[in-house]
């Protein structure tokens, strides 16, 4: 039937709407994917190594082996996402042909193009992209991203950068809302973002697509804090499978994300969890090793 339209922005952004209030967990194999689904994850992110391992191992980080992705797709019924390198449109073509449900064009992997992100309009599979500020978020949306996540600093177990990026984006959106229409042209220039998107944000006071928080969340309290700061859901990477008891921690983070405004529930789910991942102080990583600076 010719009236059926596949891969529209509405259905791409619509899947992100369905993930709201949920936790997307990084997994490296089918066994972890099942634990994540059992814990109540609303989707899993398939990748070769979790960010803290990528950070420790060094070298070039790339898209996962398709075999791993297929194995994870077979193991769970929730959506399966996978990461492609920034600008690596062929990795994205491969992931689309595997029918992953979302592609994360991710700074956690080593960028493949230092000037261009993937033209995401060319794909029927939706993309999520990271951003540290409003201009970056709007540039990704102008390239066709159907979902945004604040970058934070992946693989650190330290929520401070996630907080910084969420507050930055929210603050910049508030500024836009207070401007008159003449001032928005200059704002667009300063944000290096298309005027149409800047006008939309000024009028609606939010991003035109769903915005999750990512990068450094390790505890139920971290997840709830990001939700209270305005995240519509959370990504948890190393924080779950680098902790002592991933199943229990995963479930607790899911519960904290649903009941993010309910300190009674948050106290209960934070109780008696075994050790969180070790975590890194951002200053000790060194500015040149920060993943959040990847992407432009």
């Amino acid at each position: 039937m010719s009236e059926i339209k596949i891969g529209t922005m509405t259905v791409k952004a619509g899947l992100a709407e369905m993930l709201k209030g949920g936790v997307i967990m990084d997994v490296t194999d089918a066994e972890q994917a099942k634990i994540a689904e059992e814990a109540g994850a609303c989707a899993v992110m398939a990748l070769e190594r979790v960010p803290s391992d990528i950070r420790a191992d060094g070298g070039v980080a790339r898209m996962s082996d398709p075999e791993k992705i297929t194995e994870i797709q077979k193991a769970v019924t929730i959506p399966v996402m996978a990461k492609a390198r920034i600008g690596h449109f062929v990795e994205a073509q491969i992931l689309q042909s595997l029918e992953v449900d979302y592609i994360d064009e991710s700074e956690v992997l080593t960028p493949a193009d230092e000037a261009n992100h993937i033209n995401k309009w060319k794909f029927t599979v939706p993309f999520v992209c990271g951003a540290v500020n409003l201009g970056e978020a709007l540039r990704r949306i102008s390239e066709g991203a159907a979902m945004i996540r604040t970058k934070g600093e992946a693989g650190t177990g330290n929520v401070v950068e996630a907080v910084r990026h969420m507050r930055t984006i929210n603050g910049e959106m508030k500024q836009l809302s207070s401007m008159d229409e003449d001032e928005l042209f200059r704002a667009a220039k300063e944000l290096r973002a298309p005027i149409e998107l800047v006008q939309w944000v000024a009028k609606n006071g939010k991003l035109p697509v769903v915005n999750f928080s990512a990068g450094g969340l390790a505890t139920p309290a971290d997840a709830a804090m990001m939700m209270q700061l305005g995240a519509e859901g959370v990504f948890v990477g190393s924080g779950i499978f680098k902790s002592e008891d991933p199943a229990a921690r995963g479930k607790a983070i899911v519960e904290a994300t649903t009941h993010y405004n309910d300190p009674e529930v948050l106290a209960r789910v934070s109780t008696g969890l075994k050790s969180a991942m070790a975590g890194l102080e951002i200053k000790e990583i060194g500015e040149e090793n920060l993943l959040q600076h990847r992407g432009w």
Partner: protein
Amino acid sequence: MARSPKTGHLIIGVLALQGAFREHATALEKCGAAARQVRRRRELAGLDALIIPGGESTTIGKLMVSYHMLDEIKSLGAAGLPMFGTCAGLVMLARQVADGDQPLLNLMDITVRRNAFGRQVKSFEAPLEIPALASMAAAGVNSGAAPFPAAAPFPGIFIRAPWIESAGPGVDILAELEGHAVAALQNNLLVTAFHPELTGDLRLHELFLRIAAG
């Protein structure tokens, strides 16, 4: 928009464990009803109706069990509380899923197939003929959905959508797409495989409020 005298006083719960609950709440408020987000069992008390939104049905089902809400919602539905399930909500209300198993409310006499239209790359939009909406307008029910004339096709947004594989004799199929049932009504229970809450078209919410008003 003027509040309809019948629906203006209704309190409609929207299950807010995960998924597109905020959009349903907005649609209800545009129709003149009060929406209450429901995250804990005690918040189910005193509702006139309940919406189970789209989201991930596996996730919502598990959360309903771990928050001890499954049995409570099930007995409310069995006692006649009007319920509207969209996408994952349709799956939750079903008696059976054709593929695999997951916690279900087991209220509506339908068997559903999850992700029946395929994974996300197959997600689509399609206009739907829903005769029940036209007859609702003919019966003089005020529809606040002015931009959408009663007889116009409904904008169907299908995201990793299920379909109704089979239905018992008490179930009215409200809409079909390529031979598959994608909306249905059984007494107090309304379900759609698609997402009216993402469209701005309030006709199905109006229909549900009419059911809730009795």
